[in-house]
């Protein structure tokens, strides 16, 4: 198991009232994501526990793209990866931020 951690400054704080959300499942080829609104301002932090080594660059690109497009300021995101493909990771991330952004 490898742990990766990325910190970003988002363009803005993510609107919405939810403090916490969870999406996805822990299963092979899938992943579970916990989102918590605990960070100040536009800070965003993503921590990934993944069984697959050697995909650090891909994770970095996926997280950067997500932060760029979704502006998840204020969120700490914890990912429990089951070897999901980057497209699945990205979908779960935007699903998570949509959940957090919901009124």
């Amino acid at each position, binding site marked *: 198991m490898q742990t990766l951690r990325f910190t970003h400054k988002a363009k803005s704080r993510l609107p919405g009232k939810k403090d916490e959300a969870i999406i996805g499942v822990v299963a092979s080829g899938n992943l579970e994501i916990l989102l918590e609104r605990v960070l100040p301002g536009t800070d965003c932090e993503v921590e990934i526990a993944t069984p697959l080594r050697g995909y650090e660059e*891909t994770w970095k*690109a*996926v997280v950067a*793209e997500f932060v760029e497009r979704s502006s998840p300021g204020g969120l700490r995101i914890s990912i429990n990866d089951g070897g999901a*493909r*980057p*497209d*699945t990771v*990205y*979908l779960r991330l*935007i*699903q998570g931020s*949509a*959940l957090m952004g919901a009124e």
Partner: protein
Amino acid sequence: MADWNSEQRARDERLAAGSKIAEGKMVAPEHATALLEAVIRPGDRICLEGDNQKQADFLAACLAKADPKVLHDLHVVQSGIVLPEHIDLFEKGIARKLDFSYSGPQSHALPRALKSGKVELGAIHTYIELFARYVVDLTPHVALTVARSADREGNLYMGPNTEDSPSVIEATAFKQGVVVAQVNEVVDKLPRVDIPADRVDFVVAAPKPFYVEPLFTRDPASITDIQILAAMMAIKGIYAEYGIKRLNHGIGFNTAAIELLLPTYAEKLGLKGKIATHWALNPHPTLIPAIESGWVKQIHSFGSEVGMDAYMRARSDIYFTGRDGSMSSNRMYCQIAGLYATDLFIGSTLQIDLNGNSSTVTEDRIAGFGGAPNMGSDAHGRRHPSEPWLKAGREAVDGRPQVMRGRKLVVQLVESFSEKMVPVFVEKLDSLDLAEKLKLDLAPVMIYGDDVTHIVSEEGIANLLLCRTAEEREQAIRGIAGFTDVGRGRDRKMVEKLRERKIIRRPEDLDINPLDAQRSMLAARSIEDLMHWSGNLYDPPDKFRNW
């Protein structure tokens, strides 16, 4: 004196040789190999009917048992290289040359046989291209066909699996060839006659019913959220946008997801009756919920599907059925329908390059084409207008030229990565390397980039009709190629400009809520659900019964 009837005489000689083994037209199964050795000559073109579905498997096994000293150098001209026996013919030296369309289960064995020099490859065709050559320069001398039943005269009943047979048999029988049929049973009276007896020379009742591959059954349980997201984009960004009523779907999970979203997601969008009403399509079980919900007006099919007989019989308003009530398919007609009478083809592929060329050939795998290159091409002979066709035609040009023509929508629906993290978007197709290695005159390309109008991935839709330069086209493709190397190599500024011009559209541009991309959105989530939708008329094959 010129001899104008030598072929007829040659045919009479073959029939005379065969008759010694037969009783009238009937041949006992244990004499089938002897019959084939009697009616086939070295160097003959033979069509051993194997499509992508039904297989003349008994005759295939009997031919593979022939003595290579008697039968050799045959030229196999058949649509499917599907059974191991089809490859055995070449390994044993019975056959040497091959012209075909589709190789599904033998897609790994075929490149091996090519490399070893056992197979001399003519060409890989689309179905109707090969059928067309049956009446021009690849007419079979002998056709080995397969039917559900024969009567004592030799009339054949094929039921829902008529498939390629009429095309093969007419070409063979009317050019003085010999037709041998494998049947499950000989009966006194057939439910209906699909092939008249005077086109059939010999009939063999096989010891076991012929094999049919359930090729079009996709278990909804395996459809992923990513596929659902892309399917939602296709529905909203293409089907609704162009008003697609007449269409063909490929056989992948991606298009199965679209079929299962019609009664749910598309219904919510108010699209019922406005899209997806008339189909050129195999009897996909995943279309059952849409049919039962009143979405579908009619379907003509290339072939049949295992387990769908009773359902289709009970839905004759939807399917084409004979006077006996059972469905009737015809691959030639349905392929032509896909070419001339549909406004959209959508299907998946394994590789797409930066020009939009696609291929299912990867290193050491030649799956052939089947019908996709035909479905997935713009028919330049088409002359009747329709709204989607005209709209696509207008998008492809600037302004209003004096002479306008429409465009068929050819859509590639893919995930940026396939199984095991293999990228679908590539700089260069594997097909080109394989063609070089095997010294093929033409690299196999499934759909040429200039026929593709849209590519849909989980990241978005690229509308290639609206691209005006090669550079725009490349960036439009990179812009939806996700986290593959091709996708990460995008010019981000240019991609944003393409997005402003609606050449690239993302789920958020189409107002698609990512939270809707969940399996709960599917009208059926298992094979069992499909059975329930059908009122238990759908009878899935055992390998799909997992409950």
